[in-house]
């Protein structure tokens, strides 16, 4: 199968969906050249750097029958438009009693590891998970971003697509023929019998590396990539924990009030799953600090294959 990058796969998703539906509109401060060339400047619009206005304009477009895709670029910039995300986009379907649909896709990059420092590095998905009304996807592979973005554009709700900044140039197999990936279906990236590791975004790759190392020691790790956070595939994760009896959640976001906390709570709250636990669940997450600039400190703030291995070993004691 052909290999393309994560960014190329995302671009293909947009092009295919923009061809399919003339009501799609793209808003971003940067123009995607291939989209602009094919669909013109009225649909592929360049915005001023004024996040609140274009994040909000997408809501007005959607409420008037269009399907906007907004590239906010870095998730740290999204905070400038937080009222439009939380008070408007998330609540508008509900507070108007479901009388209108708001199909919107907001794309934002997340993550750290490039010495971009505190205001250009963050993984804030749990903040948005706490605002009911938003669907949240977190594709970790080129295959997934294409299939999930296509589904997101066809969805009738506001969807936030968080894309880890380290994945853009990563290559992966993507079929030529069309496919969609439904929301709420986790992917089991590696089968194992001893420990379930739920690994988000870039941490999925670190977890796979950790699993490879531990297999040599006779510890067999099952790695699950949830792929979407809202909706969350609870069943696949619970079934895995019932099998392994152990849980580790690996994510780059700060550990406090994180998506990792939600995955852990979801597992231990279920009486049937709880009874099968052989040890206390562990989290390999980012430390509770703004992301520092200098590489040794930045690396220390983030989880990696070694901290994931430590967490796994903790569950095996």
């Amino acid at each position, binding site marked *: 199968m052909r290999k393309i990058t994560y960014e190329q796969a995302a671009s293909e998703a947009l092009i295919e969906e923009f061809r399919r539906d003339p009501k799609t509109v793209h808003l971003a401060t940067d123009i995607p050249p291939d989209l602009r060339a094919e669909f013109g400047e*009225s649909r592929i619009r360049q915005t001023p750097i004024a996040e609140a206005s274009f994040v909000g304009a997408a809501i007005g477009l959607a409420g008037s029958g269009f399907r*906007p895709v907004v590239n906010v670029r870095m998730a740290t910039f999204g905070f400038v438009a937080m009222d439009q995300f939380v008070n408007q986009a998330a609540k508008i379907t509900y507070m*108007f009693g479901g009388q209108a649909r708001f199909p919107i896709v907001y794309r934002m990059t997340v993550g750290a590891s490039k010495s971009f420092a505190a205001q250009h590095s963050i993984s804030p998905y749990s903040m948005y998970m706490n605002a009911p009304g938003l669907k949240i996807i977190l594709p970790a592979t080129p295959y997934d971003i294409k299939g999930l973005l296509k589904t997101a554009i066809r969805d009738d709700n506001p969807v936030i697509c968080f894309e880890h900044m380290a994945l853009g140039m990563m290559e992966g197999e993507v079929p030529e023929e069309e496919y969609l990936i439904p929301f709420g279906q986790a992917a089991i990236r590696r089968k194992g019998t001893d420990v379930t590791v739920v690994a988000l975004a870039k941490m999925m790759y670190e977890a796979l590396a950790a699993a490879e190392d531990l297999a040599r020691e006779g510890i067999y790790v099952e790695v699950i990539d949830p792929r979407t956070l809202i909706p969350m595939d609870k069943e696949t994760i619970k079934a895995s924990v019932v099998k392994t009896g152990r849980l580790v959640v690996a994510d780059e976001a700060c550990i406090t009030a994180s998506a990792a906390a939600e995955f852990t709570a979801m597992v231990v709250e279920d009486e049937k799953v709880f009874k099968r636990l052989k040890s206390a669940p562990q989290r390999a997450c980012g430390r509770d600090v703004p992301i520092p600039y200098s590489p040794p400190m930045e690396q220390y703030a983030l989880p990696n294959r070694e901290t994931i291995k430590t967490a796994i070993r903790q569950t095996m004691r």
Partner: protein
Amino acid sequence: MLTIRRFEERVVVDYQSGAIPGIVHSYIGQEAVATGVCTNLRRDDRIISNHRGHGHCIAKGADINKMMAEIYGRKTGYCKGKGGSMHIADFSIGMLGANGIVAAGLPIAAGAALAAKLEGGDKVVVVFFGDGATNEGEFHEVLNLAKIWQLPLIFACENNGYGVNTPVKVATGMEHVSERATGGYGIPSAVIDGNDVVDTYEAAQKAIAGVRTSQGPFFLEFLTYRWRGHYEQPGLPDLRPAAEIEMWKQKDPIPAFERRLVKKGIATQKTYNDINAQVMGQIQQAVDFALASPLPAPEDALEDVFSSPVK
């Protein structure tokens, strides 16, 4: 205009009696603005409103039964009781929703105006907001966006002199907020007596006609006054000077229009009395409808978070 007044008077009374929960922001005193503007709109034109939005809804043609039921928190309300006074919407008549956050409707209106432009017809969008919104960043972002994209957007600023309890003079560095639109962003504007319904009608007619023929956005600043406090709260002192409130009550848009019609021989006192009686009947019907409607079931709270159910 009269329907708005009588509707708002009844909402205040029913709020004070405890029949209506939550918070309501009365539009009494500003009726000539919504009426003058919305009378110039077609059904397929769109409006976005703010927290003081009942008047805009009625003027755009909303069903007062469904409005009253919503304010009463009933299942038959416009939003099934999920929105209440500050979040009434009727997408079928182009009323894209009231908004409880100051200035937050402006970006949404810009999007609706972009939609109108992309559709290629001559639809326009009107966004209603107060003087208080003009100090928010989103206001400035949207003036800029409307100008650079030449959006068919009418900014309808209801300058009622106060943002909550802060006088315009304290919060704003110039006499007219419309100077910001014209001087800062190159958007043509007009300052209008917001208590004269003929003036508001004629100014809006001219502005809307221009915007319809793709001449880009227009800014209307209506000078008006709300008779009541920022919102209804028993025991809350009104910090505004009593003489000022009284002065504006003398400029009540409704009797002024009535006198004008009688003077011109278009209507008589009897015509006014008949219309008033008819309106009072409609308001009573709306209250009866609300009271006869069921409250939502508690678990209805779980519906409509998404437009399609999530597994």
